[in-house]
């Protein structure tokens, strides 16, 4: 199992992501954004968290033009599994691989803390190891995680079971930290091979350090 983690100038979660997937016995390559081709035997591409290009202009606005991205888009369009975490989620939105856009958090603060999330749909590889209505505890750390999508596209997301996780309290009742439409924290594309979420599953892999709820998600992608 080969996981390719793409590194941009300003990315800062690539080592955590590599560590997490290596712990799950995957073979992990860090791929530089100026490369034009993903490693040939890539099974999963991860666009990790951080502040690519210093978040200049808009979060992830410039990363989408990095040379590697053409191959990432091709990989996704051919059915390859792509996971965007935090800044990586913002990239998937900017590239149009996922619908919607990110705005500044409603309270205009950078939010960094553990947050509860409820599983809304699990008929996809990413959440296949969790049950609907399970509540998981995963760190969030973002200043622009206020997910926006218009009503028509939102309805399409629900109709196709593309809304995967919502921000909640410990009982699974919606609790919105950042102003996202319907408290949405994680979505996928129609074909269910491209996944984006603001929370950081790669930071929740050791119960000793607070939570290992991210393991089932990262594993799920490997078993799809």
């Amino acid at each position, binding site marked *: 199992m080969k996981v390719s983690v793409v590194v941009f100038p300003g990315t800062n979660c690539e080592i955590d992501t590599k560590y997490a997937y290596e712990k799950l016995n995957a073979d992990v390559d860090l791929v530089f954004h100026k490369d034009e081709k993903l490693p040939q035997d890539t099974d999963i591409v991860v666009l990790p968290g951080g502040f690519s290009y210093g978040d200049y*202009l808009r979060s992830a606005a410039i990363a989408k033009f990095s040379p590697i991205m053409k191959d990432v888009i091709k990989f996704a369009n051919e059915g390859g599994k792509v996971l965007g975490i935090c800044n990586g989620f913002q990239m998937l939105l900017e590239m149009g691989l996922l619908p919607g856009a990110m705005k500044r958090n409603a309270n205009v603060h950078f939010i960094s803390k553990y947050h509860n999330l409820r599983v809304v749909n699990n008929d996809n590889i990413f959440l296949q190891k969790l049950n609907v209505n399970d509540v998981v505890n995963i760190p969030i750390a973002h200043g622009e995680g206020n997910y926006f999508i218009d009503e028509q596209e939102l309805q399409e997301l629900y109709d196709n079971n593309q809304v995967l996780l919502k921000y909640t309290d410990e009982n699974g009742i919606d609790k919105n930290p950042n102003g996202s439409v319907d408290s949405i924290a994680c979505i996928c594309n129609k074909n269910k091979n491209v996944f984006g979420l603001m929370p950081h599953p790669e930071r929740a892999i050791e119960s000793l350090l607070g939570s290992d709820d991210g393991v089932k998600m990262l594993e799920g992608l490997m078993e799809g």
Partner: protein
Amino acid sequence: MKVIVNIQLKEGVLDPQGKAVHHALGALKFNDVNDVRIGKQIILDVDGEDKEQIRTKVADMCEDLLANTVIENYEIEIA
């Protein structure tokens, strides 16, 4: 030629920054402000003389990079 691009959140899209500034103005007793919207201005120096050609080219720049048209509108002013 100098080109000014003004980028604003679309109407109906809540502006968290504008809201925070509006609140702060209220705290400073500037109570006669009804609403605050914050956008950004990008000033370009572009080669060429033909204003319509430049306008088309800058519109392409906005669509591709400068604005996120899911949530933002842009206006182009050519000086």
